């Protein structure tokens, strides 16, 4: 059943890869790898938006496979029209240094162990974690079991604790998969989780390799996939890992768009940011951050046009979100029973800031559940390796993006109507994991690569850009 659970998303994945290739015509080998990993989210995300529109417009729940096939068919036609099927330089011969071989083997080892970890926990906890049962898989079940009356899944009679206002990328992908397979196959949400986990790692690897070097990319992905909490959350079947995927996809595309002065990449960055918001509400402030960053990064280069490209990318996911919010009309738990006077009073309460700082410090020390603080380790590493110079404006903004998202999360804690300690215990480690891959990617963009700092050593240097 597990292979079938992968296969049902095959057409969407192929369509996603094709769409990225259609918009970004780079034939560099790392660009091609990046397109494959970006295609996962683009394909699944667009398919879920189209499936939602289909549910709104027509009775029944069938047709997920047909939507994927239609999407793929359109992409293939567009690729043929644009003559984008030439193989390019992907399979050209390339040199590889011994250090890259060693690091490559380490990456293979880490990926292998991560896959084993996921398989074990997917079998032990086939229903995922608490949040999967309370929100994501509950929503999928409710929609799937309601058949023609799927809108009952958003009945106001359902307890507010089950967050019926949360967006639908993950639940609808699961429902689409179940309708295709003809039953509630537990492996479907698990397969989605693993697709997003490894595609996220793939984006970090290929974007770093494209912008910096293969060794630097290997270092980044080894640390990412070694992070115990990240692996654990990937088995939870919640929307946290898919959200993280879309955040890193959007951020890396914005940097690439600036580096290459390519508006197509900006469109894709907008698409990914929009899909982040269609995955989880935390994606909405991220969308705003990306718009602001676009304004600053492209300040002298046709700001209005560039912003329009970014916003054009968000169109389909935003349309889905607006229709969903109108359709469900449920208040978010953070703002229901939390009026303006209460929010203002919390904003000026120093005790809350102290409580949050103290909790945050503990969370940051134990970030990712590494046996020794990974922040300290990376800080020392950066100090020894040195910071790269010069750094482009977009790369500088790569630090601002996770930092802004982090600040927004802290603001939410300040104004939360829930018991603050409970809310932080319940969610802070997950929220920090949203940001960790972004921060790690920024870190390896800013720190000198092994090739650069050791460029006189023949053992270490070969095939690098920087």
């Amino acid at each position: 059943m597990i292979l079938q659970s992968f296969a049902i998303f095959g057409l969407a994945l192929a369509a996603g890869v094709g769409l990225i290739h259609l918009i970004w015509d780079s034939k560099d080998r790392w660009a091609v790898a990046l397109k494959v990993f970006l295609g996962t989210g683009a394909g699944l995300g667009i398919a879920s938006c189209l499936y939602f529109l289909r549910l709104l417009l027509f009775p029944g729940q069938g047709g997920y496979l047909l939507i994927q096939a239609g999407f793929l068919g359109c992409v293939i036609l567009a690729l043929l029209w644009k003559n984008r099927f030439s193989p390019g330089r992907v399979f050209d011969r390339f040199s590889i240094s011994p250090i890259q071989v060693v690091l490559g083997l380490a990456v293979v080892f880490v990926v292998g162990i991560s896959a084993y970890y996921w398989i074990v926990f997917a079998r032990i906890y086939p229903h995922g974690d608490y949040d999967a049962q309370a929100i994501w898989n509950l929503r999928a079940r409710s929609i799937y079991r309601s058949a023609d009356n799927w809108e009952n899944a958003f009945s106001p009679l359902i307890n507010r604790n089950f967050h019926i206002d949360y967006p639908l990328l993950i639940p609808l992908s699961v429902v689409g998969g179940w309708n295709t397979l003809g039953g509630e196959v537990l492996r479907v949400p698990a397969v989605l989780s693993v697709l997003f986990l490894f595609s996220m790692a793939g984006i970090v690897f290929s974007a770093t390799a494209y912008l910096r070097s293969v060794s630097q990319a290997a270092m980044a992905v080894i640390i990412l996939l070694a992070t115990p909490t990240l692996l654990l959350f990937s088995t939870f079947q919640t929307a946290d890992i898919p959200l993280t995927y879309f955040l890193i996809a959007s951020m890396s595309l914005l940097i690439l768009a600036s580096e290459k002065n390519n508006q197509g990449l900006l469109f894709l960055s907008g698409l990914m940011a929009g899909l982040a918001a269609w995955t989880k509400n935390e994606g909405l402030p991220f969308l705003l951050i990306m718009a602001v960053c676009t304004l600053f990064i492209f300040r002298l280069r046709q700001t209005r046009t560039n912003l329009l490209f970014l916003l054009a990318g968000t169109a389909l996911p935003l349309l889905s979100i607006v229709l969903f919010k109108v359709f469900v009309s449920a208040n978010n738990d953070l703002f229901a029973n939390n009026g303006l006077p209460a929010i203002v009073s919390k904003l000026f309460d120093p005790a809350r800031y102290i409580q949050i700082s103290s909790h945050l410090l503990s969370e940051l020390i134990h970030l990712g559940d590494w046996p020794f603080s990974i922040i300290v380790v990376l800080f020392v590493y950066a100090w020894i390796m040195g910071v790269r110079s010069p750094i482009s404006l977009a790369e500088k903004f790569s630090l601002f993006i996770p930092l802004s998202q982090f600040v927004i999360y802290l603001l939410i804690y300040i104004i939360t109507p829930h018991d603050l300690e409970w809310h932080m215990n319940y969610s802070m480690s997950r929220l920090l994991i949203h940001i960790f891959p972004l921060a790690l990617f920024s870190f390896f963009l800013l720190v000198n690569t092994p090739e650069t700092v050791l460029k006189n050593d023949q053992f270490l240097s070969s095939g690098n850009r920087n």
Partner: protein
Amino acid sequence: MRNLRIMAITSLIIFSLFVTINNGIRAHASWKQDQSLEDSVSRWEKRVKSVLKHVPGDVNVLGYAADWNIPNTEYDLIDQENEYTLTQYTLAPRAVQPGLDQEWIIGNFTKPGFRDWLDENLPSYEIIELGFGMYLIHRTSK
């Protein structure tokens, strides 16, 4: 400086590989421990699903009462919350609302004294014992 940088790169990789191996060991230990056991959610589903044999098909909302409702009873709030969540998860798309307002109510009681509490709060009702502390309560008057 170059030697220091080589050490930094090597140490970071070794540290990461050490944690990776630890992840693998943890997964392997969990696998060996739980290989023969059914997961707790599936077990809970089997208990709760029996409710549906007794409830008419057109009932879309069920009530839910548990130890947390009974005054002066000790309970673990997290366990109670999890069990309520799993009950809703199992019975979806039906809504499961905490309280005694619905005609059909799921009871999840592990402590004695719940019948006295039901007698005090429901004028008349029928109760079916489903096992494992699960009950189906049918209000026979408003």
